[in-house]
């Protein structure tokens, strides 16, 4: 994916929709285009957060550690942005992300991302809107996770 395509892809992301074209191009120019093979981790739970990812092609799985083994709790696919929450909160990664099949992603440097979305008022409102959406979504997924754990416990309890 060359520079021009990157710009187009980024333009389609709601958070960047209102961003000034030259700033968008700067983000595109400073981003890295990375390829991951099936099963490879983009990053691990607990890693320091230093970038935001956008899936160009393929699917990734969101995995979390559960008593020493990894379980998949969700997946993301084409044109989805992830990893920005950890950048906003300046916290380590809350989950491991693994490629499911061959995956191509854009990686935007965390510093660059934070600067662009906070330094320009046109993006700030958009960011707030998206963040609140994410929070709502994550609450739902947490509930799902809890339900699953409950199910598993029930199954195990039934087995004994």
């Amino acid at each position: 994916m060359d520079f021009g395509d990157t710009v187009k892809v980024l333009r389609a992301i709601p958070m960047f929709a209102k961003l000034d074209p030259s700033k968008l191009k700067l983000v595109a120019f400073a981003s890295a285009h990375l390829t991951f093979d099936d099963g490879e981790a983009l990053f691990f739970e607990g890693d320091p957060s230093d970038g935001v990812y956008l899936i160009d092609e393929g699917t990734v799985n969101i995995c979390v550690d559960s008593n020493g083994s990894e379980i998949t709790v969700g997946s993301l696919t084409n044109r989805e942005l992830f990893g920005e929450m950890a950048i906003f909160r300046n916290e380590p990664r809350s989950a491991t992300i693994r490629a499911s099949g061959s995956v191509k992603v854009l990686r935007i440097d965390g510093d660059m991302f934070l600067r662009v979305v906070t330094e320009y008022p046109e993006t700030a409102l958009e960011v707030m809107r998206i963040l609140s959406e994410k929070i709502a979504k994550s609450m739902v997924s947490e509930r799902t996770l809890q339900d699953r754990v409950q199910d598993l416990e029930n199954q195990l309890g039934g087995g004994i």
Partner: protein
Amino acid sequence: MESSIFGFIFKHSRRQQVFLLLLTLVSFPFLYASLDLPKTIINEAVGGGVSFPRALFGIQSLQLEQIDYLMTLCGIFLGLVLINGGFKYWINVYKGQMGERMLRRLRYILFARILRFPLPQFRKTSQGELIAMITAEVEPLGGFIGDAIATPAFQGGTLLTILGFIMIQDPFLGVASIALYPVQMILIPRLQRRVNLLGKERVKAVRKLSEQIGEVVSGIQEVRANDTSEFERARFARQVGAIFEIRYLIYRKKFFIKFLNNFIAQVTPFLFYSVGGYLVITGDLTFGALVAVLAAYKDLASPWKELLSWYQTKEDARIKYEQLVDQFHPAGMIEEDRQDHRLDPVPHLEGAVVATNLSLEEDGGIKVVDGATFRFDSRSAVAITGPAGAGKAGMARLLARLLVPTGGNLRIGDAVLPDLPEPVTGRRMAYVGQSIQLFNGTVRDNLVYGLKHRPGPSAERDGDDRAAFERYVVEAQASGNTESDPDSDWVDYDGAGVPGPTDLADRLVHLLGVVGMDGDIYALGLQGSIDPERYPDLCARVLEARTRLRERMEGSDLAKTVEPFERTRYNDNMTVAENLLFGTPIGDAFMQDRMADNTYVRQVLHDTGLEEVFLQTGLQVASIMLELFQDLPPDHEFFDRYSFVSADDLPEVQAVVRRAESLGGVRQLESLDRRVLMSLPFKLIPARHRLGLLDDDLKARILEARRRFAEGLPAEFAGAVAFYDQDSYNAAASVQDNILFGRLVYGRQQGHAQVNAVIAQVVDDLDLRRTLMEAGLDFQVGIGGARLSNGQRQRLGLARALLKRPDMLVVDQALAALDPVSQTAVLDRVFDESAGRGIVWVLGQAEMMDRFDTALVMEGGKISRSGPARDVAGDLSGVAAD
């Protein structure tokens, strides 16, 4: 050190001064003859009234006609001029040599005294002051010492001779000509005294200035971080302002003295004219005598002036010297013989360390250690702990004999610790403090620093070097400097417990492991380069590693992570410049930023028809850069991180792009503009920038340019690039790059760690690790070790202390920069390493105390608790739990 400058001169240069005096005296008759001869030439040879042939100098056998007579006299005159010049040259050179030797001696003495200063003195004296004193302040003293005796003797002699001549002509006029000398001799010293006081102030002000400069240089980070540059400028302005005031006053007074001298010198002729004239008129004095006296008086003025100016210089030098002596006589200096490096054998420290009522009082009466009494075996492990400010650090320094107690007793076995000579404490004890000083040099130099107590066998020299060194030794003796050869092997292998250099390296590597720095040094070795001529075998093994790495990667996922160098393939993960060069630049000629300026590169591009394409691409890159960066503030960090064009150059690039647009393309641009555009494509890395500006056709043409570049490389650039060659070692690149022989792929960042791991494995397989560690030992640490982290410096400091296998190791919270887990690990390894020898360790917390034999708990300078470490640790944790 002699208390006055003349004491110093007499003690160290008496013989030379006497010789110089004799030389001056011997030169007198020749000088006199050269002054007298012209009279003879004019009166006898040229003037009439003399009959020829005539006997030369009354020697009857030498009868000469007039012309011969004249020529002979002129020849003699020429000879005398030569002899006089020769004398002057010889005397000056001799004076210069003597002065410089004395200067060298003085500097050496001062430096040697600094080495003997008691440590607390360094809190009162700044580095800047000491530097100013030894470098600038002593400099004029050397010049004065050369003139100290000879000048007054010569000028005084001349003065007396002329005065005698006047006296013979007429005693009364003789007295008149010196009538005002007493006035000068009373007035001038008085005025001079004030100048002297100012001179003292000036010296002090200049020292303050050096102190401030030194402080700002070492604290530059604070200045920048706090935006105090204006404050520092103001402070500096005040200092130089003060110096200006003093110097201005000195000038005024000096020139007033000069004025007074000149005035008095002119007043005397007034006496001659009035008194002498009166005497001539009354007939008491002949006219001829008056003229003669006047002429003689003229000659009198010059030596008298010289004497006065010598007096002023002398006063200046006297004060400078006295001030130096004052500064270099601090109380409590270590006696000279205690630093005598020749002590042999150096006894070991044995027995119990016993302190009775031990005290350490600082200036101002603060008791750092206050009546401490304790006892422990010098070969045991002792922990000192206590709250901050309890006196732990002071105690550690007392035990390491860096400080001398102000009260009480401190003994090791039979020896009184403060009386032990430095060769004993310096070799049998080691001290590692909280801040580690590293010296500018390699890691190895810094590690063996603790073993350089005395010179080993002199370095081997032959031919000219040998002669030069012999001269060096003779001169060193003449200036009272040490004759030790700084280039000899100073390392005390015995002290490190190894037979020689090879084993020492093993020992260093082992100790780096003990302090947990082996990994860092290995990494430094990997990043460093090695000299193929010195280590041909090593380079062969690196090439072997390259092959093995390639084999391992082939067919595995790692192959995707590295794009290898191949002469016939374009490498998408390196810049266009690197692709063209296909090698490592050596020196400036082919640095990336200079490529567009290089005429040979331009030639190659022209020949391959790439020039126009590069200009076009450059224009495109320039336009993109303008769009991306022109709105950013010039100091934005993105410029450094991402832009091809610096913020400063952006307006220029903008102007070029505008001109290209108005000219309808790059074709008609002027050469300066073309250069700006040409430089941009060289920075492109296709895999990273993905600008789509390099298509396959262009890449193929760059490959063609690569081929031409290498084939036609002119002789003048032969050494400016080390080409990548699959089968040879690239001396200009790092070891790591040599093994990798390719570039890490931008899109595969997750694989980089794996590649490093495989490289480490290959290195281990080939037994290269140890050798790379040695290369790492040659890493330059920078000034004060600035190129290493704080933790690395502390680890090196500890390794340096362990290397000399001290009977007693004193550590004062020296691992504070490390995390607790590493601290414990290093402590345990140090214990293993020092088995059978003593350890005194100041602990910040009581946590690791259970490893020690004895514990001393300090509070307010006193020992509040002591006993077996286990018990004390138990009590302390009990207290903490409460």
